[in-house]
């Protein structure tokens, strides 16, 4: 058996160090022999790369909109299914469906659902709700494309986060609720003064996971729009992929990947910092 350090070195440390080195070179897979060390050359080039700026902006939107939305929604779902209401067992099972279907399949299904010409969403708006004017070119209009993908991410990730919140909710001692009830505390007061403070650690787990997920979103964009139309859904990960495996600019792609890593580390650090401060 390999010593654990060796495994960590081979599969984590070496690739990390090697890609860090690559990010400081102009390594081109079409001409590896001409690889030069250029220091921060790629970083300066990125600052003037309009496509990168657009990808960074879209990733920022993902973070700003998706991140709070998925946390609030998953908490809401967890509170909903944690109650002892009839049929909740079925609901708890059904909620897993978006997680168990392979991501690429769900992306294709949503792409069909969003289709302007024959998608079920526009058909529903037209034929069931009789709101033909609300029909939109969901993936074809740059105004809506990114948000349409965002909805898919929320749909996909909410159940996963809800399950984590559910585990947190079950860990809250019931006796606290019973005492609060005897003291006459309403549902909202119990939620505000007991549930939410005791879910703080769960919040941190979900927040860190979702920060990572929202920055490294890839499959949905790649399958549903390919980053288009007109780069309106290009995010950092798809742009890094395009540079690495379509243009063979490995050095440039490694730089983009390291910027993604820096963003994730920063958000994680902020989360942990807030958590620590609160605990102190």
């Amino acid at each position: 058996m390999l010593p654990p350090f060796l495994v960590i070195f081979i599969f984590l440390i070496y690739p990390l160090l090697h890609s860090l080195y690559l990010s400081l070179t102009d390594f081109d897979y079409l001409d590896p022999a001409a690889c030069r060390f250029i220091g921060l050359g790629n970083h300066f080039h990125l600052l003037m790369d309009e496509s990168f700026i657009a990808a960074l902006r879209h990733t920022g939107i993902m973070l700003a909109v998706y991140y709070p939305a998925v946390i609030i929604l998953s908490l809401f779902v967890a509170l909903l299914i944690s109650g002892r209401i009839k049929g909740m067992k079925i609901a708890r099972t059904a909620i897993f469906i978006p997680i168990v279907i392979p991501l690429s399949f769900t992306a294709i299904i949503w792409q069909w659902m969003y289709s302007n010409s024959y998608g079920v969403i526009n058909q529903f708006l037209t034929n069931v709700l009789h709101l033909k004017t609300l029909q939109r070119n969901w993936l074809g209009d740059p105004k809506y494309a990114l948000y349409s993908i965002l909805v898919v991410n929320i749909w996909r990730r909410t159940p996963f986060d809800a399950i984590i919140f559910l585990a947190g909710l079950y860990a809250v001692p019931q006796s606290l609720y019973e005492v609060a009830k005897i003291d006459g505390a309403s549902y909202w007061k119990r939620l505000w003064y007991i549930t939410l403070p005791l879910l703080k650690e769960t919040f941190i787990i979900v927040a860190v996971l979702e920060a990572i997920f929202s920055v490294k979103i890839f499959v949905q964009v790649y399958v549903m729009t390919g980053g288009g139309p007109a780069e309106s859904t290009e995010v950092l990960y798809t742009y890094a992929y395009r540079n690495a495996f379509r243009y063979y600019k490995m050095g440039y792609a490694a730089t983009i990947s390291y910027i993604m890593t820096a963003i994730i580390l920063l958000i994680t650090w902020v989360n942990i910092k807030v958590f620590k401060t609160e605990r102190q």
Partner: protein
Amino acid sequence: MRRRIKGLMLAGVLAVFLLGIESAGISAKRTLRVGTQAWIVKKYNMAEAVKRFNRMHPDIDAKIIEFTMEEIRRFMLKWSREETSYDIVIGPGVQFARPYQERNFILPWNFVFEKVPKDEFLAPFLRLSEISGKYYSLPWCGEVIALIYRTDLVKDAGLTGAPKTWAEVAEYAKKLTMDTDNDGVVDIYGLASPLVGPPSDKIDWVVWGTLESKGGNLYDKDGNFNVKSEKYREALKFYVDLRKAGCLLPDCHVDDNVGRNAFKAGKVAMLITWHSRLIEAQHILGFDKAYLAPLPGSVENGSFTTLGGGVYLPRFGNVEDAKKFTFDVLLSDWWNQWAAENYGKMPTVKPHFAELKEDYWDDLLKIADISSTMPLYIDAPKMFDSIATESVKALLGEKSVDEAMDRAYDKIKDLRK
């Protein structure tokens, strides 16, 4: 008793010896791994192709190994280690030829001219795979940008036959766009086309076909790719104007298949796309409901033509048997004609057209012979992506056509040729 035992032992030794010879015979069979992208397996009847080849060569065991689009990305990595999973590769687009050639991973196909004279190939298809006088992708599966129209919808709109000029295409598109239930929302669009940006980049191909058929040229007099010409802008503007007029299917820039699906569903009356899309439409709608017409002016000026994919010969595979497969299958009459008759895939060698019955093959042959092809620059993928991105911006009204093409020019001017 002892004799019987000796006899049995001798028979046993003989049996083992004979089995040894037999199994040695089997192991002597050479394997030919024919890597084939998934969509090709059915459309080119690869099962029958391999069966026939194996019958012709009892000493070779050819096998089809399917691969997906995603796997193409791994070829470079595998080949850079001087290994290959396939002895012949059928599928990855010709734009990959240059990177493969640049790294010296693939062999040229010049040996085919020993049996098939160069002038029997349609010239644009040969040009498409030529790098410094050598041919790095075997020409096969030709495609020409053409116009396909719904005869029923054209007739319902009081029109006759296909449009003959570009002005007529625009006029037809307007007349064929209809709000059938008078609720203020269009139900049938006059025109659709795969005006898709990266990574498909089909918008480039459609605009290039339009440009050529209108008498423009993809290249300037020095042979440089030219997006700054007036004709180029005019070709792109044709689609921008139709979109503004509300006659172009609004989401045909989202993915390659939106337009063709809407056409088959009766939501689009005309399609400007690959000629081979006709066959699938006819299979679904009926042979009299969908016809093909050349793009106006393309019989005289050409259109844009490309190959459905590349065929590559990895340097590290079973090259000799791959060459046999090339002559016995890939350049055979029956294989090319079967795909042409059943799926509309255009042969690339002129004599293969002889047996094809449909009328449109004559026009397509003429068009293909004079059409332009894409440039195989080292940075071709980046170049196509850059032009396509800016073209889609113009199509969606985010930039003017002039601004978009100026930006495209700036993005591509320093790319490696």
